[in-house]
Protein backbone atom coordinates (compact mmCIF):
# COMPACT_ATOMS: atom_id res chain seq x y z
CA UNK A 1 0.00 0.00 0.00
CA UNK A 2 1.25 3.48 -0.76
CA UNK A 3 0.74 6.74 1.04
CA UNK A 4 0.11 10.00 -0.75
CA UNK A 5 1.98 13.24 -0.37
CA UNK A 6 -1.19 14.88 0.94
CA UNK A 7 -1.56 12.21 3.64
CA UNK A 8 1.99 12.80 4.80
CA UNK A 9 1.49 16.55 4.89
CA UNK A 10 -1.74 16.12 6.87
CA UNK A 11 -0.10 13.80 9.40
CA UNK A 12 2.77 16.24 9.75
CA UNK A 13 0.35 19.06 10.54
CA UNK A 14 -1.44 16.90 13.14
CA UNK A 15 1.89 16.00 14.74
CA UNK A 16 3.14 19.60 14.53
CA UNK A 17 6.22 18.56 12.54
CA UNK A 18 7.61 20.79 9.80
CA UNK A 19 8.84 18.82 6.79
CA UNK A 20 11.07 19.96 3.95
CA UNK A 21 10.27 18.71 0.43
CA UNK A 22 13.05 16.14 0.31
CA UNK A 23 11.95 14.77 3.69
CA UNK A 24 8.43 14.26 2.35
CA UNK A 25 9.85 12.18 -0.49
CA UNK A 26 11.86 10.01 1.88
CA UNK A 27 8.89 9.57 4.17
CA UNK A 28 6.69 8.58 1.27
CA UNK A 29 8.95 5.59 0.76
CA UNK A 30 9.52 4.73 4.45
CA UNK A 31 5.89 5.00 5.49
CA UNK A 32 4.87 3.10 2.38
CA UNK A 33 7.07 0.22 3.52
CA UNK A 34 5.58 0.30 7.01
CA UNK A 35 2.09 0.23 5.55
CA UNK A 36 3.08 -2.78 3.45
CA UNK A 37 4.02 -4.54 6.65
CA UNK A 38 0.64 -3.59 8.12
CA UNK A 39 -1.00 -5.06 5.00
CA UNK A 40 0.72 -8.35 5.72
CA UNK A 41 -0.56 -8.28 9.32
CA UNK A 42 -4.05 -7.45 8.08
CA UNK A 43 -4.06 -10.72 6.14
CA UNK A 44 -4.13 -12.71 9.40
CA UNK A 45 -7.57 -13.98 10.43
CA UNK A 46 -8.42 -12.24 13.73
CA UNK A 47 -12.13 -13.01 13.82
CA UNK A 48 -11.85 -14.87 17.14
CA UNK A 49 -9.19 -12.66 18.71
CA UNK A 50 -10.09 -10.09 21.40
CA UNK A 51 -8.61 -6.64 20.70
CA UNK A 52 -5.54 -6.12 22.83
CA UNK A 53 -5.55 -3.00 25.00
CA UNK A 54 -2.13 -3.67 26.47
CA UNK A 55 0.60 -6.24 25.77
CA UNK A 56 0.96 -7.07 29.48
CA UNK A 57 -1.60 -9.45 30.86
CA UNK A 58 -2.08 -7.45 34.05
CA UNK A 59 -4.51 -4.94 35.49
CA UNK A 60 -3.98 -1.41 36.71
CA UNK A 61 -3.13 -0.86 40.36
CA UNK A 62 -5.21 2.00 41.77
CA UNK A 63 -3.87 4.73 44.03
CA UNK A 64 -5.58 5.99 47.22
CA UNK A 65 -6.95 9.53 46.93
CA UNK A 66 -4.33 11.31 49.01
CA UNK A 67 -2.25 14.36 48.18
CA UNK A 68 1.35 13.23 47.75
CA UNK A 69 2.72 16.05 45.58
CA UNK A 70 4.18 19.23 46.99
CA UNK A 71 4.39 22.58 45.23
CA UNK A 72 7.52 22.62 43.08
CA UNK A 73 6.51 25.49 40.84
CA UNK A 74 9.74 27.37 41.35
CA UNK A 75 11.87 24.44 40.22
CA UNK A 76 9.66 23.71 37.21
CA UNK A 77 9.49 27.33 36.13
CA UNK A 78 13.24 27.74 36.29
CA UNK A 79 13.57 25.50 33.23
CA UNK A 80 10.57 26.98 31.36
CA UNK A 81 11.34 29.32 28.42
CA UNK A 82 8.99 32.05 29.70
CA UNK A 83 6.84 32.58 32.78
CA UNK A 84 4.96 35.45 34.36
CA UNK A 85 2.67 35.75 37.41
CA UNK A 86 3.18 32.03 37.97
CA UNK A 87 1.88 31.23 34.47
CA UNK A 88 3.76 29.42 31.72
CA UNK A 89 3.87 31.66 28.66
CA UNK A 90 3.44 30.08 25.25
CA UNK A 91 2.96 31.41 21.70
CA UNK A 92 -0.50 32.90 21.53
CA UNK A 93 -3.18 30.27 20.93
CA UNK A 94 -6.66 31.34 20.03
CA UNK A 95 -8.77 29.28 17.72
Amino acid at each position, binding site marked *: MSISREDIEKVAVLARIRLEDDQVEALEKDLGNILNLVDQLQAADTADVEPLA*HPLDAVQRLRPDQVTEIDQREAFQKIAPATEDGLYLVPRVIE
Partner: protein
Amino acid sequence: MQWEVVIGLEIHVQLATQTKIFSGSSTAYGAEPNTQASAVDLAMPGTLPVANEQAFRYATMFGLAIDAEINRRSVFERKNYFYPDLPKGYQTTQLAEPIVGPGHVDVQLADGTEKRVRIHHAHLEEDAGKSLHEDYHGMSGIDLNRAGTPLIEIVTEPDMRSAEEAVAFARKLHGLVTSLGICDGDMSQGSLRFDVNISVRPEGEEKLGTRTETKNLNSFRFMESAIHHEVERQIDILEDGGTIVQETRLYNGDRNESKSMRSKEEANDYRYFPCPDLLPVVIDDAFIDSLRAQMPELPDAKKTRFQAEYALSDYDANLVSSNSAIADYFEQTAKVGGDAKLAANWILGELSARLNAEDRSFRNCPVPAERLGQLVQRISDNTLSSSGAKKVFELLWNGESADVDELIEREGLKQVSDTGELEKLVDSVLADMPEQIEQYQSADPGKRKKLMGGFMGPLMKASKGQGNPKVLTEILKKKLGD
Protein backbone atom coordinates in the same frame (compact mmCIF):
# COMPACT_ATOMS: atom_id res chain seq x y z
CA MET B 1 -43.49 24.72 8.49
CA GLN B 2 -43.53 23.11 11.92
CA TRP B 3 -40.05 22.27 13.17
CA GLU B 4 -39.09 19.67 15.71
CA VAL B 5 -36.14 20.40 17.97
CA VAL B 6 -33.76 17.57 18.83
CA ILE B 7 -31.34 18.00 21.71
CA GLY B 8 -28.63 15.79 23.19
CA LEU B 9 -26.24 16.80 25.95
CA GLU B 10 -22.65 16.11 26.85
CA ILE B 11 -21.93 16.91 30.45
CA HIS B 12 -18.51 17.22 32.04
CA VAL B 13 -18.67 16.57 35.77
CA GLN B 14 -15.61 17.44 37.86
CA LEU B 15 -15.30 14.76 40.49
CA ALA B 16 -14.90 15.93 44.09
CA THR B 17 -11.71 13.98 44.71
CA GLN B 18 -8.84 15.35 46.79
CA THR B 19 -6.31 14.63 44.07
CA LYS B 20 -6.02 14.37 40.32
CA ILE B 21 -6.96 11.33 38.31
CA PHE B 22 -3.38 10.31 37.46
CA SER B 23 -1.23 12.15 40.03
CA GLY B 24 -1.18 12.97 43.74
CA SER B 25 -1.58 16.74 43.11
CA SER B 26 -4.31 18.55 45.01
CA THR B 27 -7.45 19.57 43.11
CA ALA B 28 -8.46 22.35 45.54
CA TYR B 29 -10.02 25.29 43.71
CA GLY B 30 -8.51 28.75 43.72
CA ALA B 31 -4.83 28.03 44.37
CA GLU B 32 -2.08 30.22 42.93
CA PRO B 33 -1.41 29.33 39.26
CA ASN B 34 0.63 26.15 38.72
CA THR B 35 1.18 25.45 42.41
CA GLN B 36 -0.88 22.27 41.98
CA ALA B 37 0.75 21.13 38.76
CA SER B 38 3.24 18.33 39.40
CA ALA B 39 5.72 16.66 37.08
CA VAL B 40 3.03 14.22 35.91
CA ASP B 41 0.56 17.03 35.18
CA LEU B 42 3.28 18.94 33.32
CA ALA B 43 4.07 15.84 31.22
CA MET B 44 7.72 15.82 32.23
CA PRO B 45 9.61 13.06 30.42
CA GLY B 46 9.79 9.82 32.36
CA THR B 47 6.71 10.39 34.49
CA LEU B 48 3.96 7.79 34.58
CA PRO B 49 0.28 8.04 35.53
CA VAL B 50 -1.25 6.04 38.40
CA ALA B 51 -5.06 6.05 38.45
CA ASN B 52 -7.00 7.38 41.44
CA GLU B 53 -9.28 4.79 43.02
CA GLN B 54 -11.75 7.40 44.27
CA ALA B 55 -12.45 8.53 40.69
CA PHE B 56 -13.52 4.97 39.90
CA ARG B 57 -15.71 4.88 43.01
CA TYR B 58 -17.45 8.11 42.05
CA ALA B 59 -17.96 7.05 38.43
CA THR B 60 -19.39 3.74 39.62
CA MET B 61 -21.76 5.51 42.03
CA PHE B 62 -23.01 7.63 39.16
CA GLY B 63 -23.58 4.50 37.09
CA LEU B 64 -25.56 2.88 39.91
CA ALA B 65 -27.67 6.05 40.31
CA ILE B 66 -28.75 5.97 36.64
CA ASP B 67 -29.40 2.24 36.64
CA ALA B 68 -26.57 1.62 34.20
CA GLU B 69 -24.41 -1.35 33.47
CA ILE B 70 -21.05 -0.91 35.22
CA ASN B 71 -18.27 -2.24 33.04
CA ARG B 72 -15.98 -4.47 35.09
CA ARG B 73 -13.14 -3.69 32.73
CA SER B 74 -12.38 -0.25 31.35
CA VAL B 75 -9.56 0.99 29.20
CA PHE B 76 -7.91 4.40 28.91
CA GLU B 77 -7.09 5.76 25.49
CA ARG B 78 -5.14 8.71 24.19
CA LYS B 79 -7.04 11.41 22.34
CA ASN B 80 -4.31 13.20 20.46
CA TYR B 81 -4.36 16.93 19.90
CA PHE B 82 -2.00 19.81 20.49
CA TYR B 83 -3.10 22.58 22.76
CA PRO B 84 -0.90 24.00 25.49
CA ASP B 85 -3.51 23.51 28.24
CA LEU B 86 -2.73 19.78 28.06
CA PRO B 87 1.03 19.51 27.74
CA LYS B 88 1.17 15.77 27.01
CA GLY B 89 -0.19 16.39 23.54
CA TYR B 90 -3.15 14.11 24.28
CA GLN B 91 -6.01 13.78 26.70
CA THR B 92 -6.24 10.48 28.55
CA THR B 93 -9.86 9.39 28.24
CA GLN B 94 -12.00 6.33 27.63
CA LEU B 95 -13.59 5.51 24.29
CA ALA B 96 -14.38 1.94 23.34
CA GLU B 97 -14.57 0.59 26.89
CA PRO B 98 -15.97 3.28 29.24
CA ILE B 99 -16.70 2.53 32.89
CA VAL B 100 -20.44 3.32 32.71
CA GLY B 101 -22.60 1.77 29.99
CA PRO B 102 -26.16 2.70 28.92
CA GLY B 103 -28.53 3.96 31.62
CA HIS B 104 -31.36 6.45 32.01
CA VAL B 105 -32.58 9.45 33.98
CA ASP B 106 -36.30 10.11 34.50
CA VAL B 107 -37.23 13.77 34.55
CA GLN B 108 -40.45 15.35 35.75
CA LEU B 109 -41.57 18.27 33.59
CA ALA B 110 -43.45 21.36 34.76
CA ASP B 111 -46.80 19.92 33.61
CA GLY B 112 -46.20 16.85 35.77
CA THR B 113 -45.42 14.41 32.95
CA GLU B 114 -42.39 12.15 33.15
CA LYS B 115 -39.74 12.09 30.48
CA ARG B 116 -37.08 9.41 30.19
CA VAL B 117 -33.69 10.55 28.91
CA ARG B 118 -31.40 7.71 27.91
CA ILE B 119 -27.73 7.92 28.78
CA HIS B 120 -25.52 6.52 26.04
CA HIS B 121 -22.53 6.05 28.36
CA ALA B 122 -20.31 7.90 30.84
CA HIS B 123 -16.53 7.74 30.80
CA LEU B 124 -13.64 8.86 32.96
CA GLU B 125 -11.14 11.37 31.66
CA GLU B 126 -8.84 14.18 32.72
CA ASP B 127 -9.62 17.88 32.59
CA ALA B 128 -7.34 20.32 30.74
CA GLY B 129 -5.64 23.40 32.19
CA LYS B 130 -6.69 26.98 31.58
CA SER B 131 -5.35 29.41 28.98
CA LEU B 132 -5.39 33.15 29.61
CA HIS B 133 -5.15 35.18 26.45
CA GLU B 134 -5.09 38.71 27.80
CA ASP B 135 -2.02 40.84 27.86
CA TYR B 136 1.02 38.65 28.17
CA HIS B 137 3.07 40.53 25.55
CA GLY B 138 1.20 38.80 22.72
CA MET B 139 1.64 35.38 24.35
CA SER B 140 -0.84 33.14 26.17
CA GLY B 141 -0.52 32.37 29.89
CA ILE B 142 -1.09 28.76 30.94
CA ASP B 143 -2.28 27.60 34.37
CA LEU B 144 -2.13 23.81 34.71
CA ASN B 145 -3.71 23.50 38.17
CA ARG B 146 -6.86 22.11 36.58
CA ALA B 147 -4.99 19.78 34.21
CA GLY B 148 -5.59 16.21 35.34
CA THR B 149 -8.67 16.91 37.47
CA PRO B 150 -10.89 13.84 37.18
CA LEU B 151 -14.03 14.21 35.08
CA ILE B 152 -16.81 11.98 34.05
CA GLU B 153 -18.21 12.90 30.68
CA ILE B 154 -21.85 11.89 30.42
CA VAL B 155 -23.31 11.54 26.94
CA THR B 156 -27.07 11.42 26.47
CA GLU B 157 -29.06 10.10 23.54
CA PRO B 158 -30.75 12.87 21.48
CA ASP B 159 -33.94 12.42 23.52
CA MET B 160 -34.90 15.98 24.45
CA ARG B 161 -37.34 17.96 22.33
CA SER B 162 -37.28 21.46 23.84
CA ALA B 163 -35.19 23.84 25.91
CA GLU B 164 -37.53 23.16 28.82
CA GLU B 165 -36.85 19.41 28.68
CA ALA B 166 -33.11 19.93 28.37
CA VAL B 167 -33.01 22.28 31.35
CA ALA B 168 -35.23 19.98 33.43
CA PHE B 169 -32.85 17.12 32.65
CA ALA B 170 -29.79 19.26 33.44
CA ARG B 171 -31.27 20.26 36.81
CA LYS B 172 -32.09 16.64 37.59
CA LEU B 173 -28.54 15.59 36.74
CA HIS B 174 -27.14 18.40 38.86
CA GLY B 175 -29.29 17.18 41.76
CA LEU B 176 -28.09 13.62 41.22
CA VAL B 177 -24.36 14.30 41.23
CA THR B 178 -24.58 16.68 44.19
CA SER B 179 -26.76 14.26 46.19
CA LEU B 180 -24.25 11.53 45.45
CA GLY B 181 -21.55 13.88 46.74
CA ILE B 182 -19.38 13.16 43.72
CA CYS B 183 -19.37 16.79 42.49
CA ASP B 184 -19.77 20.13 44.26
CA GLY B 185 -22.14 21.26 41.50
CA ASP B 186 -20.76 24.79 41.30
CA MET B 187 -21.45 25.70 37.69
CA SER B 188 -19.94 29.17 37.95
CA GLN B 189 -16.58 27.57 38.77
CA GLY B 190 -16.96 25.05 35.97
CA SER B 191 -17.54 22.02 38.22
CA LEU B 192 -20.39 21.01 35.96
CA ARG B 193 -20.28 21.99 32.29
CA PHE B 194 -23.01 21.41 29.74
CA ASP B 195 -22.42 21.18 25.99
CA VAL B 196 -25.64 21.10 24.01
CA ASN B 197 -26.05 19.38 20.64
CA ILE B 198 -28.96 20.92 18.80
CA SER B 199 -30.60 20.17 15.47
CA VAL B 200 -34.02 20.81 13.98
CA ARG B 201 -36.04 18.79 11.48
CA PRO B 202 -39.45 19.18 9.86
CA GLU B 203 -42.19 17.75 12.08
CA GLY B 204 -42.68 14.08 11.15
CA GLU B 205 -39.28 13.68 9.51
CA GLU B 206 -37.27 10.74 10.87
CA LYS B 207 -33.82 11.69 9.67
CA LEU B 208 -31.94 13.96 12.07
CA GLY B 209 -30.90 17.40 10.85
CA THR B 210 -27.30 18.60 10.92
CA ARG B 211 -26.40 19.47 14.49
CA THR B 212 -24.31 22.14 16.09
CA GLU B 213 -22.69 21.98 19.50
CA THR B 214 -22.97 24.96 21.83
CA LYS B 215 -20.37 25.22 24.57
CA ASN B 216 -19.67 27.44 27.53
CA LEU B 217 -23.02 27.19 29.30
CA ASN B 218 -22.28 27.93 32.93
CA SER B 219 -25.81 28.42 34.26
CA PHE B 220 -29.23 26.88 33.65
CA ARG B 221 -30.54 30.29 32.60
CA PHE B 222 -27.87 30.65 29.92
CA MET B 223 -28.46 27.09 28.83
CA GLU B 224 -32.14 27.80 28.23
CA SER B 225 -31.54 31.06 26.37
CA ALA B 226 -28.68 29.52 24.36
CA ILE B 227 -30.99 26.73 23.13
CA HIS B 228 -33.75 29.18 22.16
CA HIS B 229 -31.16 31.30 20.39
CA GLU B 230 -29.63 28.40 18.46
CA VAL B 231 -32.99 26.88 17.49
CA GLU B 232 -34.10 30.24 16.10
CA ARG B 233 -30.82 30.66 14.24
CA GLN B 234 -31.10 27.24 12.60
CA ILE B 235 -34.76 27.66 11.64
CA ASP B 236 -34.01 31.10 10.13
CA ILE B 237 -31.22 29.62 8.02
CA LEU B 238 -33.32 26.67 6.85
CA GLU B 239 -36.37 28.78 6.06
CA ASP B 240 -34.16 31.08 4.00
CA GLY B 241 -33.11 28.03 1.97
CA GLY B 242 -29.70 27.69 3.61
CA THR B 243 -27.98 24.68 5.18
CA ILE B 244 -26.66 24.15 8.69
CA VAL B 245 -22.91 23.69 9.03
CA GLN B 246 -21.81 21.15 11.62
CA GLU B 247 -19.73 23.23 14.00
CA THR B 248 -19.00 24.15 17.57
CA ARG B 249 -20.44 27.45 18.75
CA LEU B 250 -19.60 29.56 21.74
CA TYR B 251 -22.53 31.24 23.48
CA ASN B 252 -22.21 34.60 25.18
CA GLY B 253 -25.00 34.77 27.76
CA ASP B 254 -24.57 38.44 28.60
CA ARG B 255 -25.15 39.44 24.98
CA ASN B 256 -27.42 36.52 23.99
CA GLU B 257 -25.35 35.81 20.90
CA SER B 258 -23.17 32.98 19.67
CA LYS B 259 -20.26 32.64 17.31
CA SER B 260 -18.60 29.77 15.51
CA MET B 261 -15.56 28.27 17.27
CA ARG B 262 -14.46 25.77 14.68
CA SER B 263 -16.21 23.80 12.02
CA LYS B 264 -16.05 20.02 12.10
CA GLU B 265 -14.86 19.92 8.50
CA GLU B 266 -11.46 21.04 9.66
CA ALA B 267 -11.91 19.21 12.93
CA ASN B 268 -9.00 17.49 14.54
CA ASP B 269 -8.33 13.90 13.73
CA TYR B 270 -7.80 12.59 17.24
CA ARG B 271 -6.10 9.28 16.33
CA TYR B 272 -7.29 7.48 19.46
CA PHE B 273 -5.33 4.48 20.65
CA PRO B 274 -5.10 2.56 23.96
CA CYS B 275 -2.74 4.33 26.36
CA PRO B 276 0.36 2.16 26.77
CA ASP B 277 1.14 3.82 30.13
CA LEU B 278 -2.05 2.55 31.74
CA LEU B 279 -3.18 -1.03 32.08
CA PRO B 280 -6.85 -1.92 31.79
CA VAL B 281 -8.68 -1.25 35.06
CA VAL B 282 -10.71 -4.14 36.40
CA ILE B 283 -13.21 -3.71 39.22
CA ASP B 284 -15.00 -6.61 40.85
CA ASP B 285 -18.49 -7.24 42.21
CA ALA B 286 -17.33 -6.64 45.79
CA PHE B 287 -16.19 -3.13 44.80
CA ILE B 288 -19.57 -2.38 43.22
CA ASP B 289 -21.62 -4.01 46.01
CA SER B 290 -19.86 -2.03 48.73
CA LEU B 291 -20.65 1.20 46.88
CA ARG B 292 -24.23 0.15 46.34
CA ALA B 293 -24.55 -0.35 50.09
CA GLN B 294 -23.23 3.16 50.80
CA MET B 295 -25.40 5.04 48.29
CA PRO B 296 -27.02 8.13 49.85
CA GLU B 297 -30.72 8.88 49.52
CA LEU B 298 -31.26 10.12 45.97
CA PRO B 299 -33.75 12.78 44.84
CA ASP B 300 -36.42 10.31 43.65
CA ALA B 301 -36.42 8.47 46.98
CA LYS B 302 -36.41 11.78 48.86
CA LYS B 303 -39.43 12.92 46.90
CA THR B 304 -41.40 9.82 47.86
CA ARG B 305 -40.39 10.23 51.50
CA PHE B 306 -41.33 13.93 51.55
CA GLN B 307 -44.78 13.11 50.21
CA ALA B 308 -45.28 10.49 52.90
CA GLU B 309 -43.58 12.21 55.83
CA TYR B 310 -44.61 15.83 55.24
CA ALA B 311 -47.77 15.36 53.16
CA LEU B 312 -46.37 17.52 50.36
CA SER B 313 -48.00 17.52 46.93
CA ASP B 314 -46.31 15.67 44.10
CA TYR B 315 -45.28 18.99 42.57
CA ASP B 316 -43.84 20.54 45.75
CA ALA B 317 -42.12 17.31 46.78
CA ASN B 318 -40.47 17.09 43.37
CA LEU B 319 -39.08 20.60 43.64
CA VAL B 320 -37.82 20.50 47.24
CA SER B 321 -36.16 17.12 46.68
CA SER B 322 -34.45 18.20 43.45
CA ASN B 323 -31.03 18.67 44.98
CA SER B 324 -29.49 17.98 48.34
CA ALA B 325 -28.97 21.65 49.22
CA ILE B 326 -32.65 22.58 48.89
CA ALA B 327 -33.77 19.27 50.41
CA ASP B 328 -31.60 19.77 53.51
CA TYR B 329 -32.78 23.37 53.77
CA PHE B 330 -36.40 22.27 53.55
CA GLU B 331 -36.04 19.57 56.19
CA GLN B 332 -34.38 21.93 58.66
CA THR B 333 -36.98 24.63 58.04
CA ALA B 334 -39.86 22.17 58.44
CA LYS B 335 -38.36 20.77 61.65
CA VAL B 336 -38.18 24.21 63.27
CA GLY B 337 -41.31 25.63 61.67
CA GLY B 338 -43.65 22.71 62.19
CA ASP B 339 -45.85 23.44 59.16
CA ALA B 340 -44.05 21.64 56.32
CA LYS B 341 -46.45 22.77 53.61
CA LEU B 342 -46.00 26.40 54.62
CA ALA B 343 -42.22 25.88 54.80
CA ALA B 344 -42.25 24.48 51.25
CA ASN B 345 -44.36 27.44 50.05
CA TRP B 346 -41.89 29.96 51.41
CA ILE B 347 -38.88 28.06 50.09
CA LEU B 348 -40.31 27.55 46.61
CA GLY B 349 -41.93 30.98 46.47
CA GLU B 350 -40.33 34.07 47.95
CA LEU B 351 -36.97 32.54 48.84
CA SER B 352 -36.35 30.79 45.49
CA ALA B 353 -37.39 33.90 43.59
CA ARG B 354 -34.94 36.03 45.54
CA LEU B 355 -32.11 33.51 45.20
CA ASN B 356 -32.70 33.14 41.45
CA ALA B 357 -32.78 36.89 40.94
CA GLU B 358 -29.30 37.11 42.43
CA ASP B 359 -28.01 33.86 40.89
CA ARG B 360 -27.43 32.37 44.32
CA SER B 361 -28.11 28.88 45.59
CA PHE B 362 -29.41 27.37 48.81
CA ARG B 363 -25.84 26.62 49.76
CA ASN B 364 -25.06 30.31 50.22
CA CYS B 365 -28.53 31.47 51.19
CA PRO B 366 -28.42 34.59 53.40
CA VAL B 367 -31.38 33.35 55.47
CA PRO B 368 -30.45 30.35 57.65
CA ALA B 369 -33.00 27.52 57.55
CA GLU B 370 -33.49 27.85 61.30
CA ARG B 371 -34.61 31.49 60.93
CA LEU B 372 -37.01 30.70 58.11
CA GLY B 373 -38.34 27.89 60.31
CA GLN B 374 -39.02 30.39 63.12
CA LEU B 375 -40.76 32.66 60.63
CA VAL B 376 -42.95 29.77 59.46
CA GLN B 377 -43.78 28.94 63.05
CA ARG B 378 -44.90 32.50 63.78
CA ILE B 379 -47.02 32.65 60.65
CA SER B 380 -48.75 29.39 61.38
CA ASP B 381 -49.53 30.33 65.01
CA ASN B 382 -50.97 33.67 63.80
CA THR B 383 -48.38 35.83 65.55
CA LEU B 384 -47.52 37.33 62.17
CA SER B 385 -49.85 38.60 59.50
CA SER B 386 -48.78 38.05 55.90
CA SER B 387 -47.55 41.63 55.63
CA GLY B 388 -45.69 41.28 58.95
CA ALA B 389 -44.12 38.04 57.69
CA LYS B 390 -42.91 39.82 54.56
CA LYS B 391 -41.29 42.51 56.69
CA VAL B 392 -39.51 39.95 58.85
CA PHE B 393 -38.36 38.05 55.78
CA GLU B 394 -36.97 41.25 54.28
CA LEU B 395 -34.92 41.85 57.43
CA LEU B 396 -33.61 38.29 57.44
CA TRP B 397 -32.74 38.47 53.75
CA ASN B 398 -30.72 41.59 54.38
CA GLY B 399 -28.55 39.83 56.90
CA GLU B 400 -30.44 40.48 60.15
CA SER B 401 -29.12 37.83 62.52
CA ALA B 402 -31.54 38.31 65.42
CA ASP B 403 -34.11 35.70 66.40
CA VAL B 404 -37.44 36.02 64.62
CA ASP B 405 -39.23 36.57 67.97
CA GLU B 406 -36.83 39.40 68.79
CA LEU B 407 -37.48 40.97 65.38
CA ILE B 408 -41.24 40.77 65.84
CA GLU B 409 -40.88 42.46 69.23
CA ARG B 410 -38.44 45.10 68.02
CA GLU B 411 -40.42 46.04 64.92
CA GLY B 412 -43.78 45.86 66.66
CA LEU B 413 -45.12 43.31 64.21
CA LYS B 414 -47.04 41.13 66.59
CA GLN B 415 -50.50 40.63 65.18
CA VAL B 416 -53.43 41.58 67.44
CA SER B 417 -56.03 38.83 67.53
CA ASP B 418 -57.70 39.78 70.82
CA THR B 419 -61.42 40.12 70.03
CA GLY B 420 -62.22 42.66 72.77
CA GLU B 421 -59.45 45.00 71.72
CA LEU B 422 -60.30 44.71 68.03
CA GLU B 423 -64.02 45.26 68.66
CA LYS B 424 -63.25 48.63 70.22
CA LEU B 425 -61.16 49.50 67.21
CA VAL B 426 -63.93 48.53 64.78
CA ASP B 427 -66.44 50.60 66.72
CA SER B 428 -64.27 53.71 66.62
CA VAL B 429 -63.56 53.38 62.91
CA LEU B 430 -67.19 52.68 61.97
CA ALA B 431 -68.31 55.71 63.96
CA ASP B 432 -66.70 57.91 61.29
CA MET B 433 -68.20 56.05 58.32
CA PRO B 434 -72.03 56.32 58.52
CA GLU B 435 -72.46 56.81 54.76
CA GLN B 436 -70.44 53.77 53.85
CA ILE B 437 -72.37 51.70 56.39
CA GLU B 438 -75.65 52.70 54.85
CA GLN B 439 -74.37 52.01 51.36
CA TYR B 440 -73.21 48.59 52.49
CA GLN B 441 -76.40 47.66 54.23
CA SER B 442 -78.59 48.67 51.29
CA ALA B 443 -76.36 46.90 48.77
CA ASP B 444 -77.19 43.66 47.03
CA PRO B 445 -75.66 40.77 49.11
CA GLY B 446 -73.58 39.73 46.10
CA LYS B 447 -71.82 43.08 46.01
CA ARG B 448 -71.18 43.31 49.73
CA LYS B 449 -67.92 41.43 49.63
CA LYS B 450 -66.42 44.09 47.45
CA LEU B 451 -67.66 46.91 49.65
CA MET B 452 -66.11 45.18 52.66
CA GLY B 453 -62.70 46.21 51.38
CA GLY B 454 -63.66 49.86 51.92
CA PHE B 455 -63.76 49.19 55.67
CA MET B 456 -60.73 46.92 55.88
CA GLY B 457 -58.32 49.57 54.58
CA PRO B 458 -59.07 52.14 57.32
CA LEU B 459 -59.22 49.36 59.94
CA MET B 460 -55.78 48.03 59.09
CA LYS B 461 -54.50 51.58 59.11
CA ALA B 462 -56.04 52.26 62.51
CA SER B 463 -54.46 49.08 63.89
CA LYS B 464 -51.08 50.07 62.43
CA GLY B 465 -51.20 46.94 60.33
CA GLN B 466 -51.24 44.73 63.40
CA GLY B 467 -54.88 43.70 63.46
CA ASN B 468 -55.51 40.09 62.48
CA PRO B 469 -57.46 40.50 59.23
CA LYS B 470 -59.41 37.31 59.76
CA VAL B 471 -60.65 38.37 63.19
CA LEU B 472 -61.34 41.91 61.98
CA THR B 473 -63.42 40.61 59.09
CA GLU B 474 -65.55 38.54 61.42
CA ILE B 475 -66.15 41.41 63.84
CA LEU B 476 -66.93 43.72 60.96
CA LYS B 477 -69.47 41.32 59.48
CA LYS B 478 -71.20 41.03 62.84
CA LYS B 479 -71.30 44.81 63.35
CA LEU B 480 -72.63 45.44 59.87
CA GLY B 481 -75.39 42.97 60.47
CA ASP B 482 -74.33 40.25 58.01
